[in-house]
């Protein structure tokens, strides 16, 4: 496909949707008022016109797949024969699956906690120095970089050369200059997980940081000043005023990063591809989608396990939504 063709279909694709809305509404405006006297009736057609595309997309890409994935998890690898709980039993007995679950849990424990903590601390510190906004920009920057790009950046840092060569990876160069042996960081089981998590923390801290610094501004100045006049130390203010005040925000950020971490795929796929015991559920699932011609049963089971992880968050969101509606 030539580049010109590409530009053309991009243009056509976007135009199609604009045209849909414009033409259908135009027809409704012109003929609706003349032929359909009852406003309500016209209105309901309009609702359908407005909603239809989004709803169809929502149905095809979210609602139907959720049900279909649940169905497929009870079927064989081609999705043809009902096999009951066979796929689930396979998963429980599969060492790779257990390893992935364990890794996922460690990720879920470490990354949101560290990112939120760093974000909060840096947001606090950055407000006190004159170049705080530059500092914030720099720490926030990794948010804009793709996970794969971040993978390349960090792989370069973890790069390993034999003990006799000059180390071009920063981490090994530091280790060597301190007089230790260079290490192939990404291949040390268990610890390599933490090296991968460091990348994620590096990226997500920025997210926590910007949201916190927006929230920090909402803390009444009088409250902080009153505390200072009463002789509270900065550390005390941080723990006794700021943290309780931002409780809601902390929770929101924590869940936000949890959701992102739960489906973490790119970093591991690019860095180790799940080798050396670094695999997580999303990687295992991708693997099973294509391994041996693809196994939709096992893949679906893995997707469902990831889904189970977000259900508490989902329920909590819906609960909060209900509360808001009542007010």
């Amino acid at each position, binding site marked *: 496909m030539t580049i010109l063709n590409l530009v053309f279909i991009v243009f056509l694709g976007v135009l199609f949707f604009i045209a849909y809305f414009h033409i259908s509404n135009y027809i409704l405006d012109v003929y609706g008022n003349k032929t359909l006297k009852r406003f309500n009736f016209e209105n309901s057609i309009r609702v359908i016109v407005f909603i239809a595309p989004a709803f169809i997309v929502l149905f095809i890409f979210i609602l139907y797949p959720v049900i279909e994935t649940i169905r497929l998890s009870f079927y064989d690898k081609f999705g043809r024969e009902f096999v009951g709980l066979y796929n689930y039993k396979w998963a429980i007995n599969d060492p790779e699956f257990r390893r992935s679950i364990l890794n996922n849990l460690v990720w879920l424990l470490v990354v949101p906690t560290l990112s939120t903590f760093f974000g909060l601390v840096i947001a606090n510190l950055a407000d006190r120095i004159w170049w705080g906004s530059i500092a914030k920009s720099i720490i926030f920057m990794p948010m*804009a970089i793709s996970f794969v790009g971040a993978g*390349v950046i960090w792989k370069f840092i973890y790069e390993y050369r034999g003990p006799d060569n000059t180390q071009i990876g920063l981490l090994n160069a530091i280790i060597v200059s301190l007089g230790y042996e260079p290490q192939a960081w990404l291949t040390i089981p268990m610890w390599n997980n933490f090296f991968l998590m460091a990348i994620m923390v590096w990226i997500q801290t920025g997210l926590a940081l910007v949201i916190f610094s927006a929230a920090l501004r909402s803390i009444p100045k009088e409250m902080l000043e009153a505390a200072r006049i009463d002789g509270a130390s900065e550390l005390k203010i941080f723990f006794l005023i700021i943290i309780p005040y931002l409780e809601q925000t902390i929770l929101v950020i924590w869940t936000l990063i949890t959701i992102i971490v739960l489906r973490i795929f790119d970093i591991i796929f690019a860095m180790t591809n799940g080798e050396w015991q670094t695999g997580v559920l999303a990687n295992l699932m991708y693997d099973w989608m294509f391994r041996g011609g693809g196994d939709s049963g096992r893949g*679906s089971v893995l997707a469902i396990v990831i889904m189970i*992880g977000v259900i508490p968050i989902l329920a909590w969101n819906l609960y909060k939504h209900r509360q808001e509606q009542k007010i």
Partner: protein
Amino acid sequence: MFFVIIWIIPTFGLFISSLRDKDLLAISGWWTSLTTTEVNEIYRMSGMERQIEENGYFKIKGKLFEYNSGKKIESFGITSKKINEFNIGDVAIFKDESEVLLDEDGNYEWRSKTEFTKKKGKRLFTTSLSPPAFTFENYREVLFKEGIGRAFINTMAVALPSTLIPLIICSFFAYSLTWMKFYGRDTLLAIIIASLVVPLQMSLIPILTIYNDFGALFGVAAKSYPGVWMAHTGFGLASTTFLLRNFLKSLPNEMMEAAKVDGASHYDIFLRIIIPLSIPAFASIFILQFLWCWNDLLVGLVFLDQIPSEIILTAKLKELLGSRGENWEILTTGAFVSMTVPLFIFFALQRYFIRGLVAGSVKG
């Protein structure tokens, strides 16, 4: 301060490395590139066909390296065991009694009383000091030879419609969810909120099946650009709608009522009132969704073929990580090319970016 340094170093290192000469990159850390580096190299002198006769000597003259970025040779040797045996100006004598003179720019003169008979010249081991040197050579190579340039265009062709289409359909959707009354509206809203957190992975297998069936039915390629656009639209739909609805809800109701009394239809209201007012919100959402599509790997991997005319940047980078894992000049440059657009957006439109993120999270 400490945090800032830790955070910037990785990206900075990548950027510096992408500008360095590839031979230097492979043998020294990027942090040495800002100062003069000592480099050990091995060169081979020319063989017999270049020899000339002069004053009773057979001489071969030449240059050890063609491309010179200010490199100065400090010392040299003629065996691998003693690579620093001679200084510039010394005459080194080989076992066959031929002599060699070397200056610091790499010009050598190799002379012998007897005629040279070997096709290959002898090896010289040099130790030279290399000043900081940067080059755009890597960028040229990566963009045109490695296919990153094409992948860049492909990614653009994926990301732009994947951002605009959801923006168009979701703005209507969000409008009707906010300002139109119809049966089942609350249920629909609850579905949107639930969909916000549904992991992408839940949809992959069924959607891929649909695409394959669709492709087989109409005899077209199952994986294609429109397919990816729709997939991105589907996965970004919930969050886009949610953010837009939050914004629209904050607009004053009186304005809509007044317009309705004046006989405006919903479409008029949408075009004349909602769109102009929503430009800032659109900008934030556009940036979020665009970056998401640009940086995505999984969707591009599953719903596009990994061929040069369709492969996206992230998938290409991943491929290079596998096949060219040792060629850091290609990897670092490729990674930096893939970051140019996000970083540009980041620095130019940071305000909207942050506003979008904050709106999406504080309320969610």
